[in-house]
């Protein structure tokens, strides 16, 4: 446990020290600190997850907090592992990414300070037991990520997205606070573990509290319909930050939900149905909108939504298994959920890093302007493709393992006695299949348009030089992870068993063990797959002797140029126009005028219909209502003091009357 505290302490002191350092070594210092702290956090967390024993330590703080205990149980340990490893890789990548900004006179102090604080707060959030302390750390996490998002705050859209993020986070905290307040009133305790009995005794209360938590934590995770901050905030943040945010930070929302699930002994059918439907709808929504995007980072943000949806679907499957008393479904669902959390953090960070590398070189995130980068940036291209394949959950990469477990859970649950859950599971199965194939459409588009073909604009016509090694190495490590986990899932699966048993609140019964063989035979099969690929490759290598390079065939036309290629929007057009009612196309047109038109353009953009038809009208309504109170804000200091005085008097009167 001491090692864990050292790790957090290192991060916080690193945050403070980094303010006083020269800006050239700031990021390097941060990377070193985060690596060191990752090692310190890794040792206890790995021990816990291996043995299943819980580490605990309590400190005493003044008044309201009382005693604050830190508990590393296998579930927390799993998150600690993920946060420390992925964040340190992200920060290392950041050294290279931040370099171009050094020349400009940007203030890095705030950036490095909040970066370190973000990691420290994430590490604390998943461990702390006291709900008040939890809220404080949660808030530190939200605020520091907000400051990281507005790194380029002088741009209007960055600030706008940042504030939107802040507003969403604070609405979400309201729900979490409400749920905590209810539980605190009922149990009279500030500790998570004391809530279990309250939730067990009152089923009605359990449903309400769970929904409150689900909305609160779900907003952080980007669940539908509270997802709108996600596709706005991720693209504007610096890439290593969006990598860490999407790969790790939104998972703290999932952690919150999982922690609550671990307190619920007997979930109700209502809860499991809610979780399952929300999960699958989020996945569908995310991937459908990801297809229509041409901004790489925005696309990745939507695809984060998709993966969060898949994770929650796994959780829902597990919950349903628990309700239906089917241990196979429960274990497969839960383990799929937990594995996908890890897998997603790996490949999503990898993909964001790849997108950042592209941005560093070409200064654009717009796919339509890119192309032919595979030749210019071979390693980035290779790693990005690896990430894309594994995010599509294609074997033998890691994404497949977790999705396969979720599929297996659903299929095991299908021969059920309950017709509603039968229908729901079949629908979820079909929807997951749709999500999977749409992901292929989406990521072939991204890889194909960004990295392949000819250069689509001046931006892509860069010299043939990949990004610096300090950016490539973290990407390489992550890419290696995706393949290794994919081929040898059995080892990783052993690590997941302990967190799963926390979610089940019981040891895994012996007769369910055969289900774990799933990963063993997958490992064996995928080795065969790799061998087949190797064999065919070798065959091709030796058989193909005479090759020739020639122009692409253009049906007899020899003047093919880059403008004649398929573009990102034309690639996805057939799909998008088939599902027209689900999207809102916004076009910005400037028609050509005069005889020799110069600046005419036509731009289309796909807007989220949830934002367009629900959020925006609501905000408008709110604005209309609040504008009536504009008179109060008249800039007159004396009046403000008067308001304060009136409020105080009312408060005192209130206390006298009701207190």
């Amino acid at each position, binding site marked *: 446990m001491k090692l864990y505290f050292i790790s957090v302490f290192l991060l916080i002191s690193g945050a403070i020290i980094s303010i006083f350092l020269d800006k050239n070594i700031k990021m390097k210092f941060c990377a070193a600190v985060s690596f060191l702290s990752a090692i310190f956090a890794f040792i206890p967390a790995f021990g816990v997850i291996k043995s299943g024993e819980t580490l605990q330590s309590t400190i005493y703080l003044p008044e309201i907090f009382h005693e604050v205990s830190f508990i590393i149980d296998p579930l927390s340990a799993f998150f600690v592992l993920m946060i420390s490893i992925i964040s340190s890789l992200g920060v290392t990548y950041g050294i290279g990414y931040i370099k171009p900004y050094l020349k400009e006179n940007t203030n890095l102090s705030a950036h490095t300070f909040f970066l370190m604080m973000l990691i420290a707060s994430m590490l604390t959030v998943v461990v702390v037991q006291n709900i008040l302390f939890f809220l404080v750390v949660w808030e530190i996490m939200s605020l520091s990520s907000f400051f990281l998002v507005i790194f380029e705050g002088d741009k209007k859209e960055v600030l706008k997205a940042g504030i939107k993020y802040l507003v969403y986070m604070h609405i979400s905290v309201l729900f979490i606070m409400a749920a905590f307040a209810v539980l605190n009133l009922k149990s009279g305790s500030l500790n998570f573990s004391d809530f279990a009995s309250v939730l067990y005794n009152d089923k009605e209360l359990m449903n309400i509290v769970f929904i409150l938590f689900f909305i609160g934590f779900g907003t952080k995770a980007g669940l539908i319909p509270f997802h709108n901050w996600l596709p706005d905030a991720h693209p504007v943040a610096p890439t290593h930050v969006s990598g860490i945010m999407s790969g790790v930070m939104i998972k703290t929302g999932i952690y919150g939900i999982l922690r609550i699930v671990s307190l619920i002994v007997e979930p109700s059918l209502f809860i499991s149905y809610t979780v399952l439907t929300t999960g699958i709808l989020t996945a569908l929504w995310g991937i459908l909108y990801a297809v229509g995007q041409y901004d790489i980072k925005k696309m990745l943000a939507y695809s984060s939504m998709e993966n969060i949806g898949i994770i929650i679907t796994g959780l829902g499957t597990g919950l349903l298994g628990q309700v239906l008393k089917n241990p196979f479904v429960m274990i497969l669902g839960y383990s799929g959920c937990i594995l996908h959390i890890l897998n997603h953090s790996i490949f999503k960070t990898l993909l964001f890093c790849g997108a950042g590398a592209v941005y560093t070189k070409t200064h654009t995130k717009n796919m339509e302007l890119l192309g*032919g980068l*595979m*030749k210019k940036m071979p390693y980035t291209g290779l790693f990005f493709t690896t990430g894309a394949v594994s995010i599509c*959950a*294609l*074997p033998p990469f890691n994404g*497949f393992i977790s999705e*396969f477990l979720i*599929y*297996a859970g659903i*299929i095991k649950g299908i*021969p059920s006695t309950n*017709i509603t859950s*039968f*229908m729901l599971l*079949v629908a979820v*199965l*079909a929807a*997951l*299949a749709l999500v*999977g*194939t749409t992901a*292929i*459409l989406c990521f*072939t*588009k991204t890889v*194909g*348009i960004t990295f*392949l*073909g*000819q250069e689509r604009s001046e931006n892509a016509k860069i010299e043939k030089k990949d990004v610096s090694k300090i950016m490539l190495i973290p990407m390489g490590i992550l890419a290696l992870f995706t393949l290794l986990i994919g081929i040898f899932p059995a080892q990783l699966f052993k690590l997941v068993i302990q967190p799963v048993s926390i979610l089940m609140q019981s040891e895994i019964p012996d007769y369910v063990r055969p289900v774990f063989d*799933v990963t063993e*035979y997958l490992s064996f*099969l995928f080795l*065969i*797959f790799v061998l*087949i*690929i190797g064999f*065919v*490759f070798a065959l*091709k290598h030796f*058989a*193909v002797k*005479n*090759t*020739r390079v*020639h*122009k*692409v*065939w*253009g*049906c007899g036309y020899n003047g093919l140029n880059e403008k*004649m*290629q*398929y573009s990102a929007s*034309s*690639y996805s057009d*057939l*799909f998008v126009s*088939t599902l027209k009612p689900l999207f809102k196309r916004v076009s910005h047109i400037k028609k050509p005028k005069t005889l020799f038109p110069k600046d005419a353009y036509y731009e289309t953009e796909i807007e989220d219909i949830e934002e367009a038809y629900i959020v925006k009208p609501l905000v408008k309504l709110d604005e209309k209502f609040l504008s009536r109170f504009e008179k109060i804000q008249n800039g007159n200091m004396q009046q403000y003091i008067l308001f304060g005085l009136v409020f105080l008097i009312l408060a005192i009167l209130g206390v006298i009357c009701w207190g």
Partner: protein
Amino acid sequence: MIINLINTVLLLIMPFLFVGTIKKTKAFFAGRKGASIFQPFYDFLRLLKKETVYPDVTTWVYKFAPVIIFSSVIFASLFVPMSCGMSIVNVPFAFVIFSYVLGFGKFFSLISALDTGSSFEGMGASREACFSTMVEPAFFILFASVIALVQINSFESLKHLVFNSGVYGYLIIILASIALFIMLLIEGCRVPVDDPATHLELTMIHEVMILDNSGFDLALITWASAIKMFLFASLITSLILPSGLPLWLNILLFILCIFSIAITVGIVESSMARFRMTHVFEFVFVMSILSLLILTLSTYRIYGGV
């Protein structure tokens, strides 16, 4: 063991004969004599010897893709029940692995098409990707309903349909065969979805994606797509054929069945024109509707009504 060996041999040989039979049938309906049914195999051998041409814009993706496409189809074939309703590797949840492994091949065939930067191939890739999103959910619903009925979650659940469910079983078998046949036409890129006989039509899907491939690469890809069709055909046969017959009879029936499916494909191709692109969607949705019908039937069978 012997069955596995036989199945492996069948897997390597039958796809060529399958394509050959389709071509022969088409020739018969066109009043021509047609090439022998071994012609696809000779073509394959000839392609192997030919020079391989790479377009100048392409990268390693283009060179690597045929290898992946072929290997993924071969790997996927390990799970599919062939003669005697036996698959070489029989694992639970095989249909998930099957379709995701094929997806891996599809991923590379799509990006290799985009690698050439040709708008033809981009168009083909766009269509292929779009259609597969429509097909896959139907495939999963189909298997979910079969699994719910027979309570076996590997591919071999198909052959148990006959015993378990009486008249519902027969109805489901008929519907499922049609659905899988449609899937064969879509995934194998046959008329009325696609026309493999010509490369140069703007309505092309799969064929246009391999416009620039040649030599060894083209050989691998054509073999792979032939195997893919053969796999769907064997899925259909494992639905239809009764098990428990003597080995030789089983294998004979299997081969006959495969040939008759090939002839059916040929008849469909000779009697229909390719659909317009907008109508292809309707055709694809027929499969979804069929699998929903199957779902309804199996729900009715299990729960006695919705």
